[in-house]
């Protein structure tokens, strides 16, 4: 019996949550830019994956399934509810405003990330935060590797514009 299987016993759901929640919450925060929403997404993702955990043969892949579910939930959240548009409208009332030089890198990155399309943001976060290969990113996002390459490339281009190198 492997480690995750032991953790996933009825008494072990607690341990499984404790083990994966911090990483999951940070990932969800990067994908949503909102701590409360990130908590909700992680909770939903964890419940969904646990509901099917008995059917998952490779128990050590729990994080893989959890991450994929978080990304899916995040992407569909923004796609369906158009929260992103509302967020952008709140953040950028004047659309053409250039990136503020007064903001710190962290603030500028947050704004720049939220300015990306959900799929671009997910691809960038998986590639450069989770350090996944292009192939693994493609599998996590359910898209061809070529699409991941172009999605990441366009996302990076936009981030470069929003995050100029320090002079």
């Amino acid at each position: 019996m492997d480690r995750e299987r032991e953790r996933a016993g009825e008494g072990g759901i607690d341990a499984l949550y404790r083990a994966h929640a911090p990483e999951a919450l940070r990932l969800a925060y990067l994908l949503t830019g909102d701590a409360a929403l990130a908590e909700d997404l992680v909770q939903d993702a964890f419940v969904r994956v646990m509901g099917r955990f008995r059917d998952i043969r490779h128990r050590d892949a729990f994080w893989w399934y959890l991450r994929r579910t978080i990304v899916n939930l995040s992407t569909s959240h923004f796609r369906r509810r158009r929260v992103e548009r509302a967020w952008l409208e709140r953040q950028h009332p004047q659309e053409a405003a250039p990136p503020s030089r007064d903001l710190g890198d962290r603030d500028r990155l947050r704004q720049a990330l939220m300015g990306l399309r959900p799929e671009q943001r997910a691809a960038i976060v998986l590639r450069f935060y989770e350090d996944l290969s292009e192939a693994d990113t493609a599998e996590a996002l359910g898209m061809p590797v070529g699409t991941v390459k172009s999605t990441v490339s366009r996302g990076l281009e936009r981030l470069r514009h929003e995050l100029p190198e320090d002079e």
Partner: protein
Amino acid sequence: MDTRLRALLHDLSTEMPIDVERSRRATVRRARGRRVVTAGVAVAAVVALVVVSVSALQLVGQPERVPAVTGPAPAPPAPDVTGVPPEVAATAQGIYDAAAAGDVDALGAFLDPNTFAHDFDSGSDPIPGWREDPSDLELMVAVLELPAAAPREIEGYGTITIWPYLIDTDFDTLSERERADLARLGYSENDVQLMIEGGYGYQGPRLAIDETGLWRSFTTVGE
């Protein structure tokens, strides 16, 4: 930029307040509830199977009824290889025959354990797992009885044919045929509704064969 972006992303992620204990109780309670519901569905399925079996046994003692002939005899069960390249079709037929016969060892002839991906676990040999729990074999049969999606180029894999065609289905405009095929795979109306609301389309089992006829993957979990 890449190194700087990595550092900035890790820095930004530290903004997320991590209070696992605060959310743990509610999440674990929901997760346990979900597992109970899932188990309940499985029990219900077993009960339904028993009821059907008992009904069938009861019918044995009844006078034989001659079924009305309303058309040609139904075709014997077979994989749907319409429009599939010959090498791919041959492998699909082999997998189908082996899975339908419950012959786990025969399935091994169609895959390379060094490259095969099972439930996203690349390079894993699925045969020992299937020998221990052959329930996936029924899914393989059900998946292969549906049409395949159009072959597609996947970098690093060549041209891949994937069953079922539902992977390319737009869930916002599901047809009756597509709903019926999802039901054949065991999805309830509620499951289908969740797939629609989730916005990420078909999340069910899928089977992929490359252009050389090598079986490349079988995935049962989509979430």
